[in-house]
């Protein structure tokens, strides 16, 4: 199963809807970077609303893809994390230090627009 990546204007929205394994997330990384290059993408939202649990590898992959996207000129916001998921990650010592987060998709988009404007200035 592939993680769907949707395009709105110059942004991508990737909603993770099921428990992902290592291979899926690697594929996702490749697809996302490819799409950024093809469509001249400036912002990406990774939505975790329906994710109950992720392991350290997936978390690291998300952190990595954020940095990679940054190199390609796109900013990433992670949205919709559930309390239980946040607690698990913090307990594991994964704080995703330099990744922007937002409560929900709407706020994530607003956040992303601000960030894109900042880079433009």
């Amino acid at each position, binding site marked *: 199963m592939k993680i769907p990546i949707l395009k709105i204007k110059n942004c991508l929205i990737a909603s993770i809807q099921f428990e992902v394994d290592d291979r899926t997330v690697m594929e996702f990384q490749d697809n996302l970077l490819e799409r950024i290059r093809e469509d001249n993408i400036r912002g990406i939202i990774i939505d975790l609303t329906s994710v109950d649990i992720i392991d350290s590898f997936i978390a690291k992959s998300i952190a990595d893809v954020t940095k990679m996207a940054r190199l390609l000129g796109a900013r990433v916001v*992670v*949205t919709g*994390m*559930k*309390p239980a*998921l*946040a*607690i698990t*990650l*913090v*307990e594991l010592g994964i*704080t*995703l230090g330099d990744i922007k*987060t*937002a*409560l*929900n998709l709407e*706020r*994530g988009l607003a956040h992303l627009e601000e960030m894109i404007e900042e880079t433009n200035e």
Partner: protein
Amino acid sequence: MGELAINNLLESDIEYILQTVIEELNIQRKKNDAFMNPAIEEQEIKQFLESLRVLLAKQSEDKINDDHLAELFMPFCQKKAAEGYYLRHLVFDTLQIKKVIWIKLKDKMDNNPLLLMDSLSVLSNVFDEIIKYMGKVFMEIRDDIIQSQKHALRELSVPVVPIFDDILILPLIGTIDTTRAKQIMENVLEAVLSYEAEFVLIDITGVPIVDTVVAHHIIKTVQAARLLGTKCILVGIRPEIANTIVELGVDLGDIKTQGNLKNGINLALSMKGLKIIKEDNPKG
């Protein structure tokens, strides 16, 4: 046959037993100031002896079980517990009643050692069951109280107060241990979701000691809230707390801090691009 013998005794000598028990209890009470108030009153002793007779009748039919005991002694135990007596008061008085009956039985059946033996062992058994049951009921009542108090304490311990749109205040009061820290983290994150908060002000004015453990818990809460997409501001850091935090070498990382709640609110508002201004013509 022991049951029948005791029951007959309880019937024929009820007045004597009642009076002796009351006298005996009074003597004991005078000896021991600790519980001057009679745990069991005259009317209740009567009731108790009545219940005892029913129980003995049950015993002669088949074994007594918890249902019988519950029926006869549950309301009594509950009443006593509600009146504030401890289990030891009740057991003490119950044992006095047993003693009086015991002596009376011995007087009556001096000429029939076999019946006496049987009666005494029955008496012992029945009273053992009663006291065991009293212990059980009192423990249950105590457990219920502890549970409800724990629950109340838990609710009191983590209030999350929304003050503006998107701004929550978490006033922490009292010592924070690991259990409470977990509770705090869960409640804050849930509240962040339900209020869609953008800022959480963690007010530690009421936290007496901030050591490494407490600081660690606060940092974890802030990090988890950040993962959800919320910013935390730590406020109410008293000078001595600031002192310990630095002395202990606790690294609060990039957590925003403010001296008091007022400044914290101002900071949150200004980060949202809001400001409280004075109106020219105040209403009211």
